[in-house]
């Protein structure tokens, strides 16, 4: 292929020249040179073409990835604010209020991936995980080299994660391959959780906004720093606690709805399990999900509760109008995710204004207390079983205790650090005070010396000198120097 233009070029030239009967080596050389130059040019153009194609591919894939309807408009001023924050190379702590206010104003989807990463950096500047809770240090590249025991489960879910989104819909296309890599790497990193259905949706949302490697870092952030991994543990106790918390919150905020659902035997686990396990990604429009993720990157797991309460509250009348088990569950699963854009914006605004952290904590404690009481009650019936249960409760408490101890330790070291900081600052302050005092003494000594010297200087020279001093207007040191010169 590559030789063709060259060959034809040579042939043409040689035939024309042979008819003229003039064929010398110089001509041939010139021809060769020309041909080689053209060949080099061709190769260069091909390379450039590939580059162009690659960048076009990237743009194309970005376009495919970000193919969703945004919720809420991000005004130009807000974009500028984000740009200002994102362009800061060093890890500076930004004012949280400012970040939060900007977040409320909106996020543009083309910047979303960067903004999530920025928010994770900001979060980590404020909250550090105790070293025992941190993920292992293995790099993404190293994890990809290993084999996972969960391969089958992951493969089965590839085609069933965002099956209608064009980035993920092609069988073993770029999207599915990235998703596979990401899920495999995570399952190897977090051996306790491994792969759990639900994670693929979270990973998918991340992949739509950033590269595989970045998505891996952000998945680590969500799972470890924000604590989402707890709900995927094999015993799924954390999920049960969350269901209890949601039902109590519903009781607080919408008592009538709570009663209606209770009467119909509908517990949150019937409808809210996917909300928690996929962070709304499996059922809700992507624009809404992305907006929920925006807030999650700042506030963590409690966002899921807030969104859930708002969704249920906003649809209260329609849910109350459904009068049987099936119609209610159908409404919750089908109608609630099918929102208009205005409704989505309303929900997001509501979520920004809610604060439920105290209740969440209280209800978690309450869950444990109730559980313990139930354990006790059942203990009275059967001795062997009760012993077993007590043992289990005991080990659970021990674990809790250890966790608390660990937290205490972290707090202690933090306090110690702060105290040493205070000490050094205090000692520095007293040193400075001493320095200032001695400097002041020195200064007055110099002033006295100047006064004395002045007495020896003739009057006309003195005025000249003062003029000079005014011109210079410099430090006391040089003043004394000029003074002493006379």
């Amino acid at each position, binding site marked *: 292929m590559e030789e063709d233009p060259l060959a034809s070029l040579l042939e043409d030239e040689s035939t024309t020249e042979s008819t003229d009967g003039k064929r010398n080596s110089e001509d041939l050389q010139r021809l060769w040179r020309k041909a080689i130059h053209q060949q080099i040019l061709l190769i260069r153009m091909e390379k450039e073409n590939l580059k162009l194609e690659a960048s076009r591919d990237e743009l194309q894939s970005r376009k495919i990835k970000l193919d969703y309807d945004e919720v809420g408009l991000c005004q130009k001023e807000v974009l500028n604010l984000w740009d200002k924050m994102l362009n800061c190379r060093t890890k500076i702590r930004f004012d949280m209020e400012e970040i939060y206010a900007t977040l409320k104003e909106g996020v543009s989807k083309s910047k979303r991936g960067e903004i999530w990463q920025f928010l994770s950096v900001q979060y980590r500047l404020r909250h550090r995980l105790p070293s025992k809770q941190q993920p292992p240090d293995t790099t993404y590249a190293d994890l990809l080299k290993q084999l996972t025991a969960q391969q*089958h*489960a992951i493969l*089965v*879910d590839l*085609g*069933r*994660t965002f*099956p*209608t989104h064009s980035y993920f*819909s092609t069988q073993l296309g770029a999207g599915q391959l990235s998703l596979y890599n990401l899920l495999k790497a995570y399952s190897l990193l977090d051996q306790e959780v491994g792969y*759990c*259905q*639900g994670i*693929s949706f979270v990973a998918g949302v991340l992949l739509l906004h950033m590269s595989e490697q970045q998505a891996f870092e952000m998945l680590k952030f969500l799972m470890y720093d924000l604590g989402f991994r707890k709900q*995927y543990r*094999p*015993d*799924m106790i954390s*999920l*049960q606690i969350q*269901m209890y918390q949601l039902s109590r919150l519903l009781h607080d905020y919408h008592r009538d709805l709570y009663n209606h659902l209770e*009467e*119909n*035997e509908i*517990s949150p*686990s*019937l409808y809210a*399990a*996917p909300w928690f*396990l*996929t962070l709304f990604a*499996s059922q809700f429009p992507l624009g809404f999900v992305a907006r929920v993720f925006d807030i999650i990157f700042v506030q963590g797991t409690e966002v899921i509760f807030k969104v859930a309460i708002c969704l249920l509250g906003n649809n209260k009348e329609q849910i109350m109008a459904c*009068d*049987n*088990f*099936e119609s209610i*569950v159908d409404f919750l*699963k089908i109608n609630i995710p099918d929102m208009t854009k205005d409704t989505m914006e309303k929900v997001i605004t509501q979520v920004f204004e809610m604060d439920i952290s105290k209740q969440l904590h209280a209800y978690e404690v309450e869950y444990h207390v109730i559980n313990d009481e139930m354990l006790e009650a059942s203990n009275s019936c059967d001795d062997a079983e009760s012993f077993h249960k007590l043992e289990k409760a005991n080990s659970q408490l021990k674990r809790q205790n250890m966790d608390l101890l660990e937290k205490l330790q972290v707090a202690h070291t933090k306090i110690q650090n702060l105290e040493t900081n205070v000490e050094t600052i205090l000692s520095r302050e007293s040193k400075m005070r001493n320095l200032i005092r001695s400097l002041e003494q020195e200064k007055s000594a110099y002033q006295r010396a100047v006064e004395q010297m002045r007495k020896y200087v003739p009057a006309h020279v003195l005025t000249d000198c003062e003029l000079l001093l005014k011109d210079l207007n410099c430090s006391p040191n040089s003043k004394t120097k000029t003074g002493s010169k006379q």
Partner: protein
Amino acid sequence: TSFSAVVLIGESGVGKTNLLSRFTRNEFNHDSRTTIGVEFSTRTLTLDGQLVKAQIWDTAGLERYRAITSAGAVGALLVYDITKHQSYDSIERWLKELYDHADASIIVMLVGNKSDLANETREVPFEEAKMYADSNGLLFIETSALDSTNVELAFETILRDIHRRVLKNKGEIPKDNTVVLSNQPNTGQSEGQTAEDKKSCCRNV
């Protein structure tokens, strides 16, 4: 109308959700989502001249979701994929799990799904599965949610079995002819029983 709760269990990806949608809505979805948690659908059909309302629970296939699955159901379809031996190998574990949590009298049907692929990629022989089912007291059938083969028959068979057993156990035919809803007081004894079943099914996440 009498009421039955049936649960679909089995490994991830064997086609539980599509079996359900084929039976209740006559639909097959090529790009269906992974089931997270539990879902359910209902269909009312006539069996032995009586209306039976079937509430069918679809569950996530992942092992750690098993706690959610099956307590209280009166019937279970244990589904495997005839083209994946791995999904057949795990049925013993599923059975154990089921008998641990469900009523001992639960009726179980072993279902080999994806029979449309039998000629190309079958990995589990029909006879092997049939023998296993017979020796373990399970009903057995091969189905294809894709081309509808035997889907109707599978659900009808297990629902008819359940229905007959209920009638036999109660020694009477339900007199009431209204649809039983969980928030309405029940009149007939058998309906009281079935409402109980429904309450306890799939609620312990």
